[in-house]
């Protein structure tokens, strides 16, 4: 019997990953579009009206996926950054830089959709409570990462500095996640958790999960498409790039 090993390290070369990403990202984009269409349909036509919040609760279908992605992308970004520091692979830093803008956008969307939800339900666009403040810090961490990246000319040195920043900032992610438990807050607790039954109607939950997966697919598509630009830019003086762009 022949065991066919997958040559993972083959794809840690930017050249191979460039072509792999080029083949993959359109599929993720299509999946994202299809799932978003289904998710929107459930959000507006299947999920019932909420007993307490009327139609206003429907913001949950973009707020929760955006918030969740903002935290998860940060973890993935830090993981790539950590790999880069440990193995000194060029691709790791490129992936971390490709993820940062998308993560920052989701953190921004999380805060804005949260404000649009807070205003009618709490009577305030913003309160300085633990959940909101720690999410704001997450946005600043992303912006800090991007600023640091663009302030260092040598991309390899920039990767290392940014990796340290990304890894230190990881401490903020569990703070965001558990903030609703650790401190008194206006923000409601988790609607879905691993340890207890979800506290919402099943069609609402389905809609939310479909949107979460759709946002995942979108993020992967955006990161892969962006990392292709970063690879071309950084490898611009190599022979393969010259062949690829001809």
């Amino acid at each position: 019997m022949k065991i066919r090993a997958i040559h993972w390290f083959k794809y840690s070369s930017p050249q191979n990953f460039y072509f792999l990403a080029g083949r993959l990202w359109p599929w993720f984009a299509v999946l994202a579009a299809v799932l978003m269409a289904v998710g929107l349909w459930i959000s507006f036509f299947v999920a019932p009206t909420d007993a307490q919040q009327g139609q206003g609760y429907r913001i949950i279908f973009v707020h929760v996926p955006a918030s969740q992605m903002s935290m998860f992308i940060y973890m993935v970004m830090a993981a790539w950054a950590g790999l880069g520091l440990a193995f000194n692979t060029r691709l790791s830093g490129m992936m971390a830089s490709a993820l940062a803008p998308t993560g920052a956008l989701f953190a921004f969307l999380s805060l804005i959709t949260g404000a649009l939800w807070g205003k009618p339900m709490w009577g305030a666009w913003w309160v300085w409570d633990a959940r909101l403040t720690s999410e704001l810090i997450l946005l600043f961490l992303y912006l800090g990462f991007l600023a640091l990246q663009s302030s260092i000319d040598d991309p390899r040195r920039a990767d290392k500095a940014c990796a340290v920043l990304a890894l230190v900032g990881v401490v903020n992610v569990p703070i965001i996640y558990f903030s609703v438990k650790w401190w008194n807050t206006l923000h409601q607790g988790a609607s879905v958790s691993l340890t207890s039954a979800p506290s919402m109607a099943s069609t609402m939950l389905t809609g939310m999960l479909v949107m979460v997966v759709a946002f995942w697919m979108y993020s992967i598509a955006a990161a892969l498409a962006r990392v292709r630009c970063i690879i071309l830019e950084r490898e611009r003086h190599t022979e393969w790039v010259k062949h690829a762009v001809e």
Partner: protein
Amino acid sequence: MQWNSVSEFFAMGGYALYVWGSFGLTAAVMVIEMVLIRNQRTELLRDLRNELRSESPSS
């Protein structure tokens, strides 16, 4: 289905600004991000091709 008319759907039970604002902004951000990535790629490819052409004037 909880909507009796199109106008009721757009009114969102009085939360139109908040609900449509959230969904609209999210959609806009995603579309803009993808357009920016495409523009970045188009510019980069143009740059790289120009560079190539100036390196080999004979061809």
